[in-house]
């Protein structure tokens, strides 16, 4: 039986507007040449003035405190302080890269392309999301470092006392609440003892799971959803492009904050400090 195959419309390149075109030589080639020269000269000057760092020879027995990844991975190192290592180091970035790669397959409308902020509300969505990403990420970092509770007490004299001590940071939820004994080793019934992909399932440490996986997941999924929901209720987010604008702008702000805090605000023992308090010691492990 013959099957009718209906071709889906495939986006084609736009027709050219030849009367609006200029010659690549000289109009574009010269701009590129100037940009390349400006960068070459700037980098020459920078290289003349500032030397690339070179510390002592590598020594596996001397661990500097703090030890840091290259700056563009410090956002992940910052995340590591707040959640399960596999989540922070691999799952979150991988999932985000996949989401980002899928952007054009989610937003297939070709309206609003070729111009900055071409769609209605795009500027306000971008600004609002960036502010939420910036303030929200800093807020969470400060709260989870325990400095939030300390500063509130110091500046305003407000203290929750021992009853609210579990709210001081994420980890204190695990440490300060009176978790019953059994909650730290709940058998994975009926899967107990089953090995999946090399991992054997025995007992679940519920407080640890809550703090290291459940709450971070809820925050990472919940906050962006909440942001989009609020902007939708306000009538700003209407199209799929708007959703992506909110997501991407929030991401850029959060990514920037995480990189900055990992680079300039994490001192010895990864404690949250001001940049002028940063010190690095070439310490011997166990004696820091």
């Amino acid at each position: 039986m013959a099957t009718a195959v209906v071709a889906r419309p495939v986006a084609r390149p736009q027709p050219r507007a030849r009367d609006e075109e200029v010659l690549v030589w000289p109009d574009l080639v010269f701009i590129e040449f100037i940009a390349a020269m400006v960068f070459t000269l700037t980098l020459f000057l920078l290289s003349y003035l500032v030397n690339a760092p070179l510390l002592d020879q590598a020594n596996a027995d001397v661990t500097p405190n703090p030890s840091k990844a290259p700056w563009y991975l410090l956002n992940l190192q910052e995340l590591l302080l707040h959640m399960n290592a596999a989540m922070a180091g691999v799952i979150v970035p991988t999932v985000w890269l996949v989401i980002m790669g899928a952007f054009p397959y989610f937003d297939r409308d070709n309206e609003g392309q070729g111009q900055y902020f071409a769609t209605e509300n795009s500027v306000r969505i971008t600004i609002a999301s960036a502010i939420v990403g910036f303030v929200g990420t800093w807020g969470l970092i400060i709260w989870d470092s325990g400095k939030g509770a300390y500063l509130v007490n110091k500046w305003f004299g407000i203290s929750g006392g021992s009853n609210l001590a579990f709210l001081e940071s994420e980890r204190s939820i695990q440490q300060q609440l009176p978790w019953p004994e059994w909650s730290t080793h709940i058998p994975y019934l009926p899967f107990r003892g089953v090995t999946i992909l090399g991992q054997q399932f025995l007992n679940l440490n519920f407080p640890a799971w809550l703090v290291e996986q459940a709450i971070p997941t809820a925050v990472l999924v919940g906050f962006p959803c909440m942001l989009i929901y609020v902007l939708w209720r306000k009538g700003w987010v209407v199209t799929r492009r708007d959703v992506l604008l909110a997501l991407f702008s929030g991401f850029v702000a959060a990514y920037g904050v995480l990189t900055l805090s990992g680079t300039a605000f994490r001192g010895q023992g990864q404690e949250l400090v001001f940049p002028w308090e940063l010190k690095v010691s070439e310490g011997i492990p166990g004696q820091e």
Partner: protein
Amino acid sequence: MAVETPAGPTLADKLYDKLFHNYVWKSIFRTGYPNTPRNQMLVVATNVFLHLHPTRIHRTHVKITHTYCLGGLSFFMFLGLTVTGILLMFYYVPSVERAYLDIQNIQTTVQFGQLMRNMHRWMAHAMVILVFLHMMRVFYTGAYKPPREFNWVVGVILLVLTFLLSFTGYLLPWDQLAFWAITVGTNIAGSAPVLGPKTRFWLLGGFEVGPDSLIRFYTLHVIGLPLLAAIFMAVHFWRIRRDGGLARPL
């Protein structure tokens, strides 16, 4: 009655003719000097490097504030890193015994060695920043939209490759900064469920950063990843042309 005789060619005309209309010049460049629209189009179309471009382009796309040249500059950084990287390779041996001393030698005894190393380092940082900014530019101008979906995906892959290129280069000086940054970085990769420990072992050639890690990072840094990046870049640039050049409003 005086007859007006046409002026003969000036000295400059003769010189121009000698320089650009001789047999050797014509054998290299088929077109004349690009001082007429015809030659200007021909020079772009017939030159292997310039023909990455179309011969003509929409006027909005030559405005600096549209692209800020970010994609082109990222590519330019890649080229600059290749050149400075090759120069550094003349002096650098990726063995634990020699790596650190070689870097010290490059800085102190090699002519312009310090400058080359500095250029390589700062260009690498610049490339990471430029690629990220380029991604932001493409996103905010909606340039990932149809028909450029796949090129956005290629761009995301190139972003990851840029990070990896920079990361693998970070170990090579074999100083404390390099050693511990890679220890922390590979520990992050090793924390992945299921494949993490295997990935870390494969990357380091062992359970910790050592001689085998250095040769692996070096090989990936100077040939594996640049080759992969070059392939994806070729696809990226080709697709820009195939998908109708830069995005413009409907």
